[in-house]
């Protein structure tokens, strides 16, 4: 850690991990509700559990991105953060807003919550992933703008590198496209059309810039490869991501009332969306292979490589599986989408945030890397979480294929609920894999508390 102000990332990362744990617990509740329908009903109905699960994911990833930005931008800009105090204040505001929102979901009926929070003035709630009450949405914008002000000033006054510029562009894009969450026309088709401008242009657009910048930053640090090389590949990869991803939004416009030509535009461009992810995988492995130093933080290297592979599998391969319109006609809105969503979010965004945490946390705690034993535990958690996520994806894919067959293709299609009963076995197996994931996550958290002799750099 070169600059004192970088330490402000620490509370962000701690909050991220805590909320991650909450997300997984609610995931397990939902997984069980899939097979034991009345579990926790009416205390926590499925829709509430799901809202908590997905919103926690978004909030903790945002915590992760913000923490990463506060860590890497001072280092890249070669100066202290413009205002550490502002960053800390924003942390507490965001945490309070996040926790209050989750408690609101859990303790107040959603319709009452909507009324209490001014949803009748400007109705924005009740749309997937954007369920947050108006004050929370405004809070997200305020926190994001304060952060962007803080970071932009830092970059403007300091060194400009590809990494901090791309990170900044990504974060600005994140804030700008979130503004579409305030637009909720009563025309359902328009509502859905622009809803994707937040959701798709986040996860298959500007978030990829943030991810690329974070990965590039860690790779420079742990491999010692020339910055020039890493930065130009970063540009090429994210260029590919946006070239394919922006029009790739069209793969969401097939069946929501938009013109039919989106079936062609969406299919062609999203068929190419795996390319940037593949490049990222090759890039990560190449850089590690031509490393000029042996970084003692082996766990961080493992997470970085894992991000490349799992992002390609989850976002690239599983996305491609059902992105072509004639296939999507059958898979749209089934467990196939759930399978893809789980592995893509884990592989791309969860893992890149953990990569960043894994690399920076030891530094913020005054050592270059954790003790070998702590790293072994962390690597165990890597494998447990990653492999169980592969299985969650496989089980959901199997459930999805069977569901599609029974409900949409068979000679005598059966109803949704009848099909759900038929695929229950896969839901049980998914839940079991989910428990393994939780164990992996608990090990990961435990690895932070393991002391031991600090590792020193080993030169080979």
């Amino acid at each position, binding site marked *: 850690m070169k600059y004192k102000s970088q330490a402000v990332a620490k509370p962000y990362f701690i909050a991220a991990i805590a909320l991650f744990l909450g997300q997984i617990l609610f995931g397990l509740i939902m997984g069980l509700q899939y097979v034991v329908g009345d579990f926790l009903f009416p205390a926590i109905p499925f829709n509430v559990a799901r809202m908590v699960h997905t919103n926690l994911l978004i909030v903790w990833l945002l915590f992760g991105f913000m923490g990463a930005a506060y860590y890497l931008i001072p280092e890249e800009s070669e100066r202290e953060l413009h205002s550490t105090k502002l960053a800390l204040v924003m942390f507490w505001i965001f945490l309070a807003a996040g926790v209050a929102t989750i408690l609101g979901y859990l303790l107040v009926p959603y319709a009452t919550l909507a009324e209490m929070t001014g949803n009748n003035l400007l109705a924005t709630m009740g749309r997937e992933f954007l369920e947050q009450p108006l004050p929370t949405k405004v809070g997200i914008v305020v926190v994001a703008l304060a952060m962007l002000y803080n970071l932009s000033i830092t970059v403007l006054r300091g060194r400009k590198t590809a990494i901090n510029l791309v990170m900044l562009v990504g974060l600005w894009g994140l804030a700008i496209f979130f503004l579409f969450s305030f637009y909720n026309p009563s025309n359902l088709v328009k509502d859905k059309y622009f809803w994707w401008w937040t959701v798709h242009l986040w996860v298959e657009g500007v978030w990829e810039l943030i991810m690329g910048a974070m990965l590039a930053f860690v790779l420079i640090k742990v491999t010692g490869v020339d910055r020039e090389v890493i930065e130009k590949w970063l*540009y090429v990869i994210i260029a590919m991501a946006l070239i394919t991803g922006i029009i790739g939004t069209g793969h969401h416009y097939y069946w929501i009332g938009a013109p039919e030509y989106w079936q062609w535009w969406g299919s062609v461009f999203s068929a190419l969306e795996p390319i940037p992810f593949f490049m990222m995988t090759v890039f990560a492995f190449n850089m590690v292979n031509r490393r000029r130093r042996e970084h003692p933080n082996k766990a961080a290297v493992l997470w970085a490589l894992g991000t490349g592979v799992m992002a390609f599998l989850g976002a690239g391969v599983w996305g491609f599986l059902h992105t072509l319109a004639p296939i999507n006609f059958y898979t749209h809105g089934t467990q196939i989408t759930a399978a893809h969503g789980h592995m893509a979010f884990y592989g791309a965004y969860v893992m890149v945030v953990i990569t960043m945490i894994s690399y920076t946390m030891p530094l913020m705690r005054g050592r270059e890397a954790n003790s070998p034993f702590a790293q072994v535990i962390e690597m165990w958690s890597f494998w447990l979480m990653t492999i169980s996520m592969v299985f969650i994806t496989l089980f959901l894919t199997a459930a999805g294929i069977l569901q599609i067959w029974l409900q949409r293709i068979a000679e005598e299609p059966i109803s949704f609920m009848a099909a759900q009963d038929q695929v229950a076995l896969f839901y049980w197996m998914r839940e079991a894999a989910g428990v393994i994931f939780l164990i992996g996550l608990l090990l990961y958290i435990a690895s932070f508390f393991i002391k031991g002799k600090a590792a020193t750099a080993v030169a080979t």
Partner: protein
Amino acid sequence: MSSAFTKSAARNIFYGGAVFFFLLFLGLTFDTMNTLPQRDNRANLTESVVRGKHIWETRNCIGCHTLMGEGAYFAPELANVYKRRGPEFIKAWIQGQPTGAPGRRQMPNFHLNEQQLDDMVNFLKYTSEINTSNWPPNIEG
């Protein structure tokens, strides 16, 4: 001959490519907005439908159901439920929740009054008449 791979060229490709494809996206969006009136059933977007959409949102229906395939995958697709079940069934179903059948998935009771139920049904009717390019594949959703 100069073979090169420079950071500035890569940067220009990134910014240029991003702007280029975003402009293309705006162009297609412009055409989409002009074409929507023929597809989105806006003629039937009545006051009641607007109220129905509001109820749909404030009861977080999307947290379990899909609507045109988007949402959660826990409960049936509802964009075509009007055609699958008809108005009376829908109202009776909403009022009859939760079933309380042990081990079965449960839907909360939202205590909707008669007018709210009608608004809900009108919203689902309007939704079912949007041109979705023949999706879903069959009436089961």
